[in-house]
């Protein structure tokens, strides 16, 4: 039996990779992937806790998150496509209209 700590450790590592990726990389596609990583890291910890506590509500939550993540990926990519059509850019450095 794999102990709970390992799952939490895995979850934390993936989450931090996601955060770091989101912060450091400037390619929007990779940033979207990082968001995906963070969401799934949370999913892992939710499933782990659900199993540990023998409570199904955690796994119900996971389904919701997967749904949201799918929607987010769809919308995010759609925005990205139209952005690329207009600007021919996927780097955040090049998209600075809102700079004050």
């Amino acid at each position, binding site marked *: 039996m794999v102990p709970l700590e390992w799952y939490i450790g895995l979850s934390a590592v993936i989450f931090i990779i996601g955060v770091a990726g*989101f*912060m450091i990389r400037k390619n929007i596609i990779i*940033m979207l992937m990082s968001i995906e990583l963070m969401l799934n890291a949370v999913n892992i910890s939710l499933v782990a806790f659900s199993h540990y506590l023998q409570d199904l509500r955690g796994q119900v939550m996971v389904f919701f998150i997967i749904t949201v993540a799918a929607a987010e990926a769809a919308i995010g990519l759609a925005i990205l496509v139209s952005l690329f059509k207009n600007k021919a850019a996927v780097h*955040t*450095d090049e*998209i*600075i209209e*809102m*700079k*004050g």
Partner: protein
Amino acid sequence: MDKYVLIPLLPLTAFVINIIFGKWIIKEKAHWIAILAVLGSFAIAVSAFLEVLSGKVINYDVYNWIVSGNFKVTVGFLIDQLTAIMLIVVTSVSLLVHIYSVGYMHGDGGYYRFFAYLSLFTFSMLMLVMGNNLLQLYFGWEAVGLCSYFLIGFWYEKKSAADAGKKAFIVNRFGDFGFGIGVIMIFLMLGSLHYTEIFGKIGTLQGQAINILGYNVDLITLIALLLFCGAVGKSAQIPLHVWLPDAMEGPTPVSALIHAATMVTAGVFMVARFNPIFNLSETAMNVVALTGAITSLFAATIALVQNDIKRIVAYSTVSQLGYMFLACGVGAYGAGIFHLYTHAYFKALLFLGAGSVMHAMAGELDIQKMGGLKKYMPVTYWTFLIASLSIAGIPGLAGFFSKDEILWLAYNHGTVGKIVWAMGTAVAALTAFYSFRIIFLAFHGTFRGTHEQEHHLHESPKAMTMPLMILAVGAVAAGWVGIPAALGGSNAIAHFFEPVLGHPHVTAAHEEEYMVMGISIAAAIGGIFVSWIFYSLKPEIPKNLAVKFKSIYTTLWNKYYVDELYDFIIVRPVKWTATNILVAVTDGKIIEGIVNGVPAAIRNFGERLRKLQTGYLQHYALSMALGVFVILTLVLIAKGR
């Protein structure tokens, strides 16, 4: 509604109608409304006068104007003997001036405006004289000041007229400041502004003193002098006389109205109205008498050398007003108001006559350029002559009786009385001299103007000569109500005034009165005679005198340099302060600093704030992450405790 309310209300209505509809609808018919309104006021004033004559005194409140705690002011009317005579003077002279203006102002672009202002002026003066409380008097007081500003500056495109209007208003402000304080002091000390209450309680202040900057000042003297301060401004006494001669810039009918019936007489009326206060202060009385006498002499000497016909008449007004104050100062309020009443007719006549001359001379005012007008404008000449005889104090005419009454009562009033009597008699001689100087220079001799002017000479239209003739009757007969006992009369007017104004008790014999009368008649005739020698017989004498006494002549010609003095000590420092302190520092630095500084500060702050908006997604993400971190940390710390 009482009919007395209509006396001021009719001119006010005429004003409102003319000012609103005058420009587009009424236009050249504006005079009908104004004249009918004043005629109505005059009719009611006469009926009110008759009621007062039968012994009735009307005193009632119409409307609660201000009620605040124990401070209560009403709009109310008091028509006693003093007010009744003022009503007659104001409405009758105003009516004649209105009629005269129809001819004089014919074709002027501001015709409707002129009549609207005349109505407002009449209304203000009526409110002033009819009020039964001090605040209403103050209202009328300020309103006539305002109207004088409108009317003196009536031809506002002309700079000198606009300046004269401002000057009248500003100079009056000096006097009104004192008057305002006087009103407030009366309210503070007596708790009321109604005449009956003021006069009832004023005795309780006797002997009380107030400490001002370490000096103990008698309270009643202080109040009386503050009130007199207003009178000095409004009635153009030294040192605030400078506005009146400049008021000549207005249309001539306005000058007549200001000088004869409204505005300048307000000061004399007020002092007479407050005689219960003045009577309690010997000092204030002496100040009034001496101010009057000095002004009278001062203005008469200036009038000797001026060449502008209206200006001479203006200085003669200042001088005659001095006479009225002189009378009030020696306790002869009745005589003062009597003189006010006779003066109204002959002075209005002089002004309207001068206006008629100007009309014929196409605006020329210099009497040196006139001459021989007698044969061109007989009506103007004869009426002007009657007015001059009247003001000079020739027996039988109005001016004689009132002037003589004043001089006689002054003569019997102790040392101060003797001094002012001597000055008054000297003024009588000077008055006769300068009045006839106009007659001889303008109406006699040969014409000295240009040919064009000579060709243009004509008698004025009916609308102008008719008021002249009516006023001439007044200038002759107005004095007959005050024929003194020494001349076999009953001095009816003095007895008429006695309940309100009192009458100084004179025990001296008739012989002495004949002596005083004789001296003043001699002075008048002497003045006329000298004038005749100077300006008709030997015209080189005045020219030689002017050369010989050059310094005196130039001083008089420049009106004792009072205007220059005021320019130096008041106008220039004020202008300097305005440009260098108010405009440069207060406006330029402080106010503009605040007005421009606040937006600048906000803008500056915004400039700094927008730097936060870097446009880098990572920065936003980082700040979000940091925010979450901080909040979580705080929550955990809070939980841990």
